[in-house]
């Protein structure tokens, strides 16, 4: 697969200058990027590699198939919430309600799959229903922000309390609801066979390669300059390496064995939401509203509509995350949605480089940020550190990432004048 991927970009590698000064070009581009405040994914990917190497030496049972599967399943729920947060942050808004909206999603699913409750429905339908219910919650919260003009901080803080209250009220009697439906539980506990894992890695690589190819051909047709071919090739190799590498490690896991479905779901939403954000008019308008809402309004963009849709995405993704988190423990209890869920989701997006002031950031940031948080937490845990240490280290990483980003931003302003 990776071989065919290389073929895809070979035509461009003949471009003058680029290949000749490979290393010099890498350096120059990196310098330009840093100067223009665009650090890209390189720092966080390097950080992630460092973390993995560090804990591999620190804890003997860290670099194992089983533990990698653990990390994937642990990050999946947080990552889903973080994906939704990215859109809200892109608008320059905040959504504090997601953790308990996730709880509502899990509650709806648990309630609808409950045998003998009189309203038991198919697990798949129950999941769809949960996402729809949460999207409606998002629509309500978003409408108050968009039409009435109440700050999103306040609206979603109210939501935080209200939905927590609903969960407590609803689960007061039973204390918790056990989830027995196998479809729902599969979201956190289904593992693909070896062959299926390889196939999925192949599909991911192929889809990425085809997207790249499509982009290059489109640009060529329009006679527009094509970006650096070696970088495109490097990214493709990187994606292929990550996909096949993950499957290789997962396939070495003992029990449970193979690539977890949760990881595939994360990649699926990563791809779909990245497409939405970067390749569609809707995504473009989200960035525009986050950058300059007045300019967006004057350009004829329906700003309230964008705001409401973004809060719907945020709540819907919270529901998806909530389902996976509930499936991971096969139940929903009184404490669901509490703890560090909310702050981890927001921290994941911010560590990945999403600005809190709107207009800057990408969906993949949430993916990488969630991966960093899950890996650090897992690594410290495996190495025998207490929860307190885990929180402290996560906090330091958050501070470090944002400081780096802020410095990069200041450099950008200076280079622009």
């Amino acid at each position: 697969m990776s071989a065919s991927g290389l073929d895809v970009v070979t035509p461009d590698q003949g471009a003058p200058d680029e290949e000749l000064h490979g290393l010099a070009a890498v350096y120059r581009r990196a310098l330009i990027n840093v100067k223009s405040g665009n650090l890209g994914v390189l720092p966080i990917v390097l950080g992630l590699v460092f973390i993995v190497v560090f804990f591999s030496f620190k804890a003997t049972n860290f670099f194992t198939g089983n533990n990698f599967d653990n990390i994937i399943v642990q990050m999946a729920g947080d990552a889903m919430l973080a994906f939704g947060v990215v859109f809200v942050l892109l608008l320059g808004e905040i959504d504090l309600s997601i953790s308990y909206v996730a709880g509502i999603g899990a509650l709806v699913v648990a309630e609808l799959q409950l045998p003998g409750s009189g309203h038991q429905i198919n697990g798949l339908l129950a999941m769809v229903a949960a996402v729809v219910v949460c999207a409606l919650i998002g629509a309500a919260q978003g409408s108050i922000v968009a039409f009435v003009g109440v700050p999103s901080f306040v609206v979603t803080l109210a939501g935080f309390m209200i939905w927590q209250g609903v969960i407590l009220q609803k689960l007061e009697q039973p204390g918790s609801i056990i989830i027995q439906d196998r479809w729902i539980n599969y979201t956190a506990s289904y593992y693909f066979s070896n062959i299926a894992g390889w196939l999925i890695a192949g599909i991911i690589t192929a889809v990425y390669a085809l997207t790249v190819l499509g982009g290059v051909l489109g640009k060529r047709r329009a006679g527009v300059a094509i970006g650096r071919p070696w970088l495109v090739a490097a990214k493709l190799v990187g994606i292929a390496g990550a996909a096949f590498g993950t499957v290789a490690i997962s396939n070495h896991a003992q029990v449970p064995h193979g690539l977890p479905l949760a990881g595939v779901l994360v990649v699926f939403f990563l791809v779909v939401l990245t497409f939405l954000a970067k390749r569609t008019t809707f995504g473009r308008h989200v960035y525009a509203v986050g950058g300059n809402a007045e300019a967006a309004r004057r350009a004829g963009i329906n700003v309230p509509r964008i705001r409401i849709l973004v809060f719907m995405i945020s709540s819907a993704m919270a529901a998806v995350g909530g389902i996976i988190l509930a499936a991971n423990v096969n139940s929903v209890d009184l404490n669901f949605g509490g703890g560090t869920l909310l702050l981890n989701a927001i921290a994941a997006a911010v560590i990945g480089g999403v600005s809190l002031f709107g207009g800057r950031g990408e969906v993949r940031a949430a993916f990488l940020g969630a991966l960093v948080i899950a890996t650090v937490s897992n690594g410290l845990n495996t190495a025998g550190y207490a929860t307190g240490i885990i929180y402290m280290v996560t906090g330091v990483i958050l501070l470090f990432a944002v400081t780096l980003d802020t410095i990069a931003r200041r450099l950008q302003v200076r280079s622009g004048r």
Partner: protein
Amino acid sequence: MNETPLLQLRNITKSFGSVQALSDVDFEVRTGEVMALVGDNGAGKSTLVKCVAGTHSADSGEILFEGEEVHIHGPKDAANLGIEVVYQDLALCDNLDVVQNMYLGRETHDWLQRLKEPIMEQKTAETLKSLAVTTINSVRQPVATLSGGQRQSVAVAKAVQWNSKLVILDEPTAALGVAQTEQVLALVRRLAEQGLAVVIISHNLHDVFETATRITVLRLGRNVGVYERARTTQEEVVHAITAGVPTKVSGIPGTAHTGATA
């Protein structure tokens, strides 16, 4: 000068509560000319423009576009007629690149709402080239990294690329350096040469005399007169702005004033 003006305003009146912002104001601009709209603070320039842009609607009076009466109730109506306004605060998104700003709100897309980036990039490059905006290195650089003059050029290019017939520029050179001002003024002249009608609102008479074909002076929400640049002086215009007698004779602007066009 027998041709019908592209845009004609007749007896436009607008008040905000008890404040009479415009009373019986007439205004016109022809294709291929730069009409300057000048006046002191509170003279009604911005209000007049907003009536044309659809931000406000006039209390009374009529708007004729290409000789026919039109009703402009919103920015969309104005855009549909081919009227574009470049506002003082630019209305660009700093976080988006030049192409993304040029197509903001009017992106080229397919049935899946997928953006057609290569086409937009190519057309943006063409538009900038046709306006001789050559100082921008890459149409893929974020607007945040552009200089004030470049940003203004992008804002103007954005306004004219939609087959617009009339471009209204609100203080286009405010907050620009000398070289950048020249760059923008040259662009304004080029627009008129390319057959657009241009209205430029400015406090800066130097800019006005550099670009305008004719100059409409407002004072206290009333017409003072319309001057031809070639036949007037800065002193006369300054006098009109600060002490001009508001005139209004039989619906033709400036007839009562010496030095004005007939």
